[in-house]
């Protein structure tokens, strides 16, 4: 019933029937035609690629299963002609791959860490399980503490000076409390004495580096005069600032004070916990190794880089020139340096800058380097996400009276992070793989320990190296593929509500 062009008036008299789609749109045949054989060129490519894949898979299976050696005590088992994978090597080395040179009788400690971490992570990753806030708090605050204590043995033995310095720093940081409560201008105005004292404390402390001062006796100990005075000034600055915050009865001062007290108390509590002797045998970080170290480095980098990266990204888009400049300089410096250089710097250069006697653990230094390095990359990923949020979202939030941090936390970041998920996880994955670089500064991560194991004369055979590298590649792939799939799952899940 085509409309007659000469006669445009037209009225439908019968319903057009609802039909199933034509055969080449549905079913196995339709799928094959559409995806694999839609044109002669595509058919040719399908056949060529298919043949190559079959050949590859067949060879791998042959190598890994049919020609493989499954049992044996040493290299003898794997030296024959045409031998495939040498699996006994893996059985023998596997514990070392997991824990490095961690003392064998203490390996229940990393196992316990894996167990607790897994038990806390799984409910975190399943969206329908509730209590996410507590779960995240456990993973971000308590789990790291437990890990440090279990793995290293705790009992750090902080010096009295260290406690004094941390307390002084916390009190010095308290000058921010009035600013946080009353805004920059008002906060500065109300807390003049506190700011002046804090500045004096910093100056005196810096002075301590330039001039040698005599040590003085304070009853029970002899201390260096300038650092001691600096601490006293910091102490006063803190007390004055906290009093300013307390003096205001609008509630803003009190809640800022509470926040400070929570952080300060938490930090000191953490120090105490690390200080306590739980009776665990100390295990030097140089003895840690294998997957354990890979996970420690990767998880630290991942967990630290996201919040720091978000702050840097917000800083880079801030209206305050100082904050913006600092963020840009920080990001561009770290992005301009290869990770290997960062690791070398952390292991060789950093000790040169630190005052004598102060000695950070090598692994700890690498962790800080990796975390800051990945933060810079994360910052740029998050910034790209922020740029994709239309101005109307900011205006909508502002018009409702939300403060900057409320707007960011509730409106802008949830959306920006959601669109950034693929790139964020991409960063996580490349960070996970880049952790292998720490082997260059003598830390035995998974790849490092595998390579070390391959030098073992006991297992020297032509089949060892391929077996070892294949397995380590497989382990890395499982982790990275897992992250990738999980990110796709979360993306789909978050997308549902917004489809039109």
């Amino acid at each position: 019933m085509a409309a007659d062009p000469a006669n445009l008036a037209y009225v439908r008299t019968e319903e057009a029937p609802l039909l199933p789609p034509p055969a080449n749109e549905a079913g196995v045949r339709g799928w094959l035609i559409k995806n694999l054989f839609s044109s002669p060129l595509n058919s040719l490519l399908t056949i060529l690629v298919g043949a190559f894949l079959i050949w590859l898979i067949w060879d791998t299976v042959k190598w890994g299963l049919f020609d493989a050696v499954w049992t044996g005590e040493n290299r003898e088992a794997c030296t024959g002609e045409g031998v495939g994978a040498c699996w006994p090597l893996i059985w023998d080395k596997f514990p070392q791959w997991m824990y490095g040179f961690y003392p064998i009788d203490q390996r229940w400690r990393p196992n316990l860490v894996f167990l607790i971490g897994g038990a806390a992570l799984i409910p975190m990753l399943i969206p329908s399980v509730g209590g996410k806030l507590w779960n995240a708090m456990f993973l971000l605050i308590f789990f790291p503490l437990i890990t440090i204590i279990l793995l290293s043995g705790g009992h750090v033995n902080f010096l009295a000076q260290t406690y004094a310095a941390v307390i002084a720093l916390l009190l010095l940081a308290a000058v921010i409390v009035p600013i946080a409560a009353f805004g920059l201008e008002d906060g500065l105005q109300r807390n003049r004495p506190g700011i002046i004292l804090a500045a004096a404390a910093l100056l005196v402390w810096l002075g301590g580096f330039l001039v040698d001062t005599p040590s003085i006796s304070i009853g029970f100990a002899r201390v260096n005069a300038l650092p001691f005075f600096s601490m006293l000034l910091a102490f006063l600055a803190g007390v004055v600032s906290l009093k300013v915050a307390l003096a205001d009865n609008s509630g803003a001062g009190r809640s800022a004070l509470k926040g400070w007290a929570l952080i300060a108390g938490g930090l000191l509590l953490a120090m105490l916990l690390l200080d306590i002797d739980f009776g665990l045998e100390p295990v030097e970080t140089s003895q840690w190794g294998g997957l354990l170290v890979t996970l420690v480095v990767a998880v630290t980098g991942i967990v630290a880089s996201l919040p720091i990266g978000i702050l840097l990204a917000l800083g880079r888009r801030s209206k305050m020139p100082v904050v913006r400049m600092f963020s840009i300089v920080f990001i561009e410096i770290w992005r301009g340096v290869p990770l290997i250089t960062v690791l070398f710097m952390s292991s060789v250069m950093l000790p040169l800058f630190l005052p004598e006697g102060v000695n950070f653990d090598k692994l700890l230094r690498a962790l800080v380097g990796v975390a800051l390095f990945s933060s810079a990359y994360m910052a740029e990923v998050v910034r790209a996400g922020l740029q994709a949020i239309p101005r109307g979202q900011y205006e909508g939030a502002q018009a409702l009276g939300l403060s900057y941090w409320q707007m960011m936390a509730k409106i802008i970041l949830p959306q920006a992070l959601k669109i950034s998920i693929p790139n964020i996880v991409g960063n996580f994955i490349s960070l996970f793989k880049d952790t292998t670089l720490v082997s260059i500064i003598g830390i035995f991560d998974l790849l490092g320990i595998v390579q070390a194991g391959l030098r073992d004369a006991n297992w020297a055979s032509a089949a060892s190296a391929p077996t070892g590298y294949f397995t380590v590649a497989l382990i890395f792939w499982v982790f990275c593929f897992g992250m990738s799939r999980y990110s796709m799952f979360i993306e789909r899940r978050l997308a549902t509500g917004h489809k039109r």
Partner: protein
Amino acid sequence: MAEPARKLEVGDEVAVQIVGMNKWYGEFHVLRDINLTVYKGERIVVCGPSGSGKSTLIRCINRLEEHQAGKIIVDGIELTNDVKRIDEVRREVGMVFQHFNLFPHLTVLENLTLAPMWVRKMPKAEAEEVAMTYLTRVKIPEQAKKYPGQLSGGQQQRVAIARALCMNPRIMLFDEPTSALDPEMIKEVLDVMVDLAQTGMTMLCVTHEMGFARQVANRVIFMDQGQIIEQNSPVEFFTNPKSDRTKLFLSQILH
């Protein structure tokens, strides 16, 4: 028009006072010597050609834009760089945008309860109750659990109005609330706005819906090239425009 322009019981209390206000975008003088007093309970319609500075003017009132000279006093609070005052003003001034600016990652209900809970520190249950009251008033209580992306444009704009009302504002600003809507949805949004006008809300509304202006406005302001050219009661404004620019504008928009 069936209904004559209502006689208004406008108090002497001032809601918004703008005195000698000027604003520039870089070198461009976008608002020139704006003087305007809005009394409590007044409904003002702002119209004028595109680019005349209507949006900029009403966005200055809640400080989405900063003015460089003159004074803006909203509900007794003068707008300066002081962040606290800006926050105070924004709490009292609701705004509805041309493109709704709903938060797509939150449900309709969450869009409505967010600001009362975080800005007004209202308990969740109470905020939800208030939200449902306003959703009922804009006639879409059944959409509370949906996401904005699942609603039609007209429904989204009604949610946006309800969202602003949930903060219990004293003044409402509308920036072309119906310009992005398909014709069949314009009426449902205008109905809600007429309804709101009848409750005595102070309203400043940029719109080209002249029917709406005739029905609810007690003053129409005509802007051109960053200046207020003419203001009058709607009847006078439409039937007896004084300036040539107004006449030209009206002739273009009414036919």
